[in-house]
């Protein structure tokens, strides 16, 4: 056998390495892009980590045992899920067959053309037991309200089915107040009445960006304010909007917890659950996860849940925060993914889903007294859904707008700016952002 020198050995190894390294990538490249015609054996769901996907994780194995299809749920924290989905959609990736989507993401994904239409492709139709607003929120372009300029004239399709029927509501200590607050004036009066050292009359969720935005929007709308009018004109600096934010950040703040500018949902729930606060806005997941959770909360059975109180104009507007399931355009298992969604929203299966902690959209389940006993907020949620809650503006620029608006509200909560100055500056920033994105402003 011919011997080689060590130098020659190193040289040959380096060359061999350089030549062999790309082989797996080449093989992978050759294998992708060829649509599979075989039966679906696995469905991969991109899901949000937390209370929202917990029930889904519990019922997915049931579908697996019935259908023989392996269900894989890949979880991401809220922000990362959005970023992951956007980058996957931009690359038309086939990593996920189903994706969980917060409803404000629908405009972005709708505008991108990132999802497969559920109605025309898979035969989804509306079910009378599910409120129409729930279907509307998964439809793009939006069936009502302003439509982004780039989307006007496009045909509407259903792209997402709600699996978490979140609507923002209001909670208060029913063991202390005998009557429910029907207006924001009542809320303020109660805050004043029950506020005392180490017991706060109201809890503001005032942390910058999304928390401050979510907490304040129902008040903004109930006072007649808004972010845009029906023709995308920015309304943040209108008198009604300024009055609403002044009410929150000055009138209510007098009776709110210290450090409200840094309070998020978990901090709010803690204050309520340990009996240190009287009232606040809330989401269903906060109720089941903390406020009414055995072994966690000290106020179980002491809280009442009602739709958002009325503003000066006599209207109280809750905010939708639905989580939907959609099928990415890149998925090669669209049909099987659609079958799973259909299975999940069937009445019996949704009941099982609710018994495992899910938040339903079916009116029959929301009004089911047995389920209502374990979920005291169900009647309020049913009322909120029936009252056609508002959704966040249906624009693909929502993330930018929410960041600007949520920062402005946070500045007002922290006392860095007056509500008027904060909203005027935010309105100018939103106008610039929207103009750059091609909206009239």
């Amino acid at each position: 056998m011919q011997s080689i020198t060590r130098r020659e050995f190193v040289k040959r190894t380096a060359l061999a390495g350089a030549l062999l390294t790309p082989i797996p990538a080449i093989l992978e490249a050759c294998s992708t892009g060829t649509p599979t015609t075989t039966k679906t054996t696995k469905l991969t769901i991109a899901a949000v980590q937390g209370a929202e996907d917990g029930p889904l994780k519990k019922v997915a194995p049931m579908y697996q045992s019935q259908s023989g299809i392996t269900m894989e749920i890949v979880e991401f924290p809220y922000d990362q899920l959005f970023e992951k989905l956007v980058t996957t959609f931009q690359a038309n990736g086939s990593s996920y067959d189903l994706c969980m989507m917060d409803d404000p993401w629908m405009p972005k994904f709708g505008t991108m053309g990132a999802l497969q239409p559920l109605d025309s492709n898979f035969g989804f139709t509306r079910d009378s037991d599910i409120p129409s607003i729930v279907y509307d929120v998964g439809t793009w372009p939006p069936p009502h309200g302003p439509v982004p300029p780039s989307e006007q004239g496009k045909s509407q399709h259903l792209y997402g089915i709600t699996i978490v029927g979140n609507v923002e509501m209001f909670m208060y200590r029913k063991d202390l107040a005998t009557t429910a607050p029907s207006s924001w004036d009542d809320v303020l009066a109660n805050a004043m009445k029950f506020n005392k050292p180490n017991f706060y009359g109201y809890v503001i969720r005032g942390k910058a960006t999304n928390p401050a935005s979510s907490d304040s929007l129902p008040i903004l709308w109930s006072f007649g304010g808004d972010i845009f009018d029906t023709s995308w004109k920015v309304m943040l600096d209108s008198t009604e909007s300024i009055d609403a934010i002044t009410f929150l950040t000055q009138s209510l703040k007098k009776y709110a917890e210290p450090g409200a500018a840094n309070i998020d949902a978990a901090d709010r729930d803690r204050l309520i659950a340990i009996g240190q606060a009287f009232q606040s806005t809330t989401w269903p997941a906060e109720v089941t996860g903390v406020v009414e959770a055995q072994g966690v909360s000290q106020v179980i059975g002491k809280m009442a849940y009602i739709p958002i109180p009325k503003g000066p104009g006599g209207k109280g507007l809750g905010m939708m925060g639905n989580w939907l399931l959609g099928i990415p355009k890149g998925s090669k298992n669209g049909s099987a993914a659609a079958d799973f969604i259909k299975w999940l929203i069937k009445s019996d299966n949704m009941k099982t889903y609710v018994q495992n902690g899910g938040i339903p959209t079916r009116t029959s389940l929301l009004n089911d007294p047995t389920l209502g006993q374990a979920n005291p907020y169900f009647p309020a949620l049913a009322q909120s859904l029936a009252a056609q809650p508002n959704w966040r503006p249906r624009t693909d620029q929502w993330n930018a707008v929410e960041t600007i608006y949520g920062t402005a509200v946070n500045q007002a909560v922290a006392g860095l700016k007056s509500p008027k100055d904060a909203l005027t500056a935010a309105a100018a920033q939103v106008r610039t952002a929207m103009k750059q994105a091609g909206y009239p402003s």
Partner: protein
Amino acid sequence: MNVLPARTSSVRVGRRRLSRDERLGYLLILPSLGAVFVIVTIPFVLVVIQSISSEDGTLIGLRNFTRALANPLLYDAIRATAEYTVLVLPVEILLGLSFALLVHRTVLRPGLRAAIYVLAILPLVVPPVAIGVVARLIYAPGYGVLNVILERLGLMHQEVNWLGDPTLAMLAVASVDVWQWTPFVYLVLFSGLQTVPRESVEAAQIDGANWWAQFRYIDLAYLRPLFVLIIFFRLADVLRVFDHVFILTGGGPGTTTQLLSLYMYRVEFKFFDAGQAAALAVLVLVSFSLLYSLISRALPLERA
């Protein structure tokens, strides 16, 4: 004398032929150069292209740069980053230097030195997200450990709003950085102190040099290049600070703790303005390259 023929053939490069050893050398560094090209050069070129393109890929010149520079939030972010840097860098260097000198001069047992070494490494290996969560438990309104301790010690009677007050919020996020990165400064400077020749110190002591004189005329001369190294690394790190600020304050109150990294993240992933984000990345890269070049000129990397 015999003249041996060249062992192998050679290749002409310019006027000179590469020897077999040189060719092998080039061959061996080729994978590394390829990796640098793929990981660094290609993304940088793509970012530059993105910074002069619109969303649909049309070349639009410097319009993204104009938009980036016209955005008042950029200047808020620069101000916040500058404040953060001015707070953390001097404190970390002074504390790290103090610890290094203290251990170098007072701790002589190797076992104890090794234990301190391990302790100093711990903050560096803890994930920044975990540090952010722990820091939130310390500073959070309502249940923060710091407020509870201060209250029990009788040092305050009203809760301090660590994360909601602009000045205190900046101090709170800076304190986390100081906790995590002072050990890095300590480790670098302590290793520098190990290189100071014992004879020089003994000679100075015989000549009657006091503690300060020993430090100023001997130790400092050996540590000077390490200060440059520390400033280089820490400035780069300050630009990347994200996790603990995001968890502690989310950039608030308002935009007072919205550092450049957090701002750029929001431009890219909240505003989805890839052009402006790319322009910001190029601006930051160019301005910090200039800054680094000035620092390296001001402080010689190697002693003459």
